[in-house]
């Protein structure tokens, strides 16, 4: 299982990756992850890769991530080439549709599903504006396969209510 996590320097992408990786290790799974350090952390694009299972390399190959978690919508687009056919995209955004309509046909063609959560707002409301990473992670963990009855349909990339939907089950990590 391949994850790509993307956002901007300072948003806590590394911490999100560590939590997911530790969850996998706690379940007795093998992990390999790759991080961005150094200059890019000064506000540049930051991408983390996490691979769960018996793999040798730490980088996710383009077109092979099942899950893309993006703390910034533009960074979601930038990381889109990593997402595999049928992959799922979780975006921190205060709306329920991807702003750039140009990508809609691609998501349809590739049977990708997209869910939105206003993680920055949720973090600010809870009193810790820096915690949008944890807010998005919580949203992701609260969702399950059942949230995507019709993958690839228009309804997917203009998803419904933010937050766990009734009937959802926790994402099995």
């Amino acid at each position: 299982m391949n994850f790509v996590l993307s956002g901007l320097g300072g948003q806590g992408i590394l911490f999100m990756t560590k939590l997911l990786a530790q969850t996998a290790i706690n379940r007795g799974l093998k992990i390999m992850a790759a991080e961005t350090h150094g200059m890019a952390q000064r506000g540049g694009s930051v991408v983390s890769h996490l691979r769960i299972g018996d793999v040798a390399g730490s980088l996710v190959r383009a077109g092979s991530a099942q899950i893309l978690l993006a703390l910034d919508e533009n960074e979601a687009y930038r990381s889109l080439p990593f997402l595999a056919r049928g992959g799922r995209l979780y975006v921190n955004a205060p709306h329920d549709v991807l702003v750039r309509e140009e990508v809609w046909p691609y998501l349809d063609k590739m049977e990708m599903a997209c869910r939105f959560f206003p993680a920055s707002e949720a973090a600010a409301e809870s009193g810790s504006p820096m915690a949008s990473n944890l807010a998005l992670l919580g949203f992701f963990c609260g969702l399950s396969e059942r949230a995507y009855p019709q993958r690839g349909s228009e309804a997917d990339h203009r998803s419904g209510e933010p937050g766990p939907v009734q009937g959802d089950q926790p994402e099995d990590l």
Partner: protein
Amino acid sequence: MKHEEIFLGNGAIALGLVEAGCQVVTSYPGTPSSEILPEVVRLIKSEKLNAYAEWSTNEKVALDNAFAAAVSGKRAACCMKQVGLNVAADSLMSAAYLGTNGGLVIISCDDPGPHSSQTEQDTRLMARFAKVPVLDPSDPEEARQMAGLALALSEEFKIPVILRPAIRVCHARQGLIRGEIPHNGRKASFEKDPGRWAATPRFRFILHGELNRKLKDISQRFDTLAPYNFHNLTPGKRYPLGILAAGVSYAVVKDILSEEARDDIPVLKLCAPYPFPERLAGEFMSACDKVLVIEETDTVIEYFLRDREKVLGRLSGNVPSEGELVPEAVYGVIDRALRSLDLKGLKNSGDGGAAELVKGLHLPIRKPTLCPGCPHRASFFAIRKARPKAIFTSDIGCYTLGLNLGGVDTCLDMGAAITMASGFYHSFAQDQIDQPIVATIGDSTFYHSGTAGLLNAVYNDARFILVILDNMTTAMTGMQPTPGLGIRADGSRGKAIPLEKVVAGCGIEFIEVIDPYDLKGMIRLIKKAAQYVSDPEGGIAVIIARHPCVIAYRQEAIPNKVKVTVTEDCVDCNFCLDRFECPALYRDETLGRTAINQALCAQCGVCIEICPKGAIVAA
């Protein structure tokens, strides 16, 4: 029962060092190597080891110190980024001839990409150049094992050994199970032997012969160094194509071939490439009609194969000659090689055209910027305001991002802010041109490589303003302490060596210290310094712009926080956005003028000084 813990590659290397009884570790920070030493320090403390770790002032200093430890019979390591090894090259070349008593591993971390470096240079070439063995791990676990292997090899053959983890090892995370950490009680000893330890050229010739013999023996050792060097050929079978893969690229190739179930393609793994395992490579070459070489970042193994008919690699144009060999690149390389030989290609699970699609979106370029509240921003603004026509030579650190503020014109290598400033001065002075020059260098970079250049500039009467951007830490690489603070790698007190004293010792007579948050004062001071520089009786003026890094000193850096707002006096001229470039300043499209992102704002209040219309005010 021992359980798996997640280790960063650099943490795995630190673990490997202490598991192998390494007693002395030295380092100068640099991405992607910086986390090794702090992890060693953590292990020394938690395991109460009799071991010494230091942040050295530069990489050459680090290597010399570790070398002496190895001469005294200890197991020693020094860690740096790959361009740091250039700084330590003088020491490395000589140490190869002299050899060691104990074990010496030089850990030089490569940065294919490059992600955070001036060059994509391949440390394996430096190993070949210096004639020392090199190990090239494919993942953190292997890096940990190789740290111990390097020390053992070094001790056995009395030769320094290089471990070169690439960035995808250093900054990979993997679950590892800790081993036993021994308490190495080995005592230092030194037997005088001037013919060796102070060898003159005549003896160096003899030592060179010894070195060549060592390499021959180690090459044979590397022929059978499974699981780091091995192939999976079936005896007697011939193959149309084999892949030779090294280091991180081996892991990538292994994943691709296993996902595609291509066990028809044999692989030779060479993670100990020099001295070259001639016999092992020869077996592989004989069994394959063509051999595709996938190695990062340069052509090391490819040259050793010495068969231009058979070898596919960079020289034949099969493999890109620059940039990181990311999985999708390797996938394409293998696929094209197979198809060019009329063999079955890979399944081609491409990205469905996403890369092109994303390109067409013209997404905003996220260039790295100085943090909100960063004192360097204030310094660069003041410098440009006071000396708008100057050449701005700069250096390596966070402050290279002064580029965005038009405050950085050059960045060559560590210390070149000063040496290029003197070089520019003499070039223009020769033509009687009074060219203003302002050099900027960080505190850590000044301690690393500033003094020799400054001594030279003073001695040869160059004229320029040098602003030392003293944020009291090595910020870019993760807040390592500097000699200016006198805090050592383990957090204990060392002797602080203030910049003022070092600068005075270099013969500078104009030394002023200022807090760059005082923008007006800083601008006045730079103008005063400019007069001194132009005065026939003057010289080089040094301004120490001292203010703590807002990240390293989160609590203390901004004692008087000022909530800032933008009034209706803003005429939307964008001056602040272009010239001050603070992430907290943005153009509000609805208001049609500048606004403050209060969540990002550090409340330093410096921007209040910069607005030509006085529209940025304390709320």
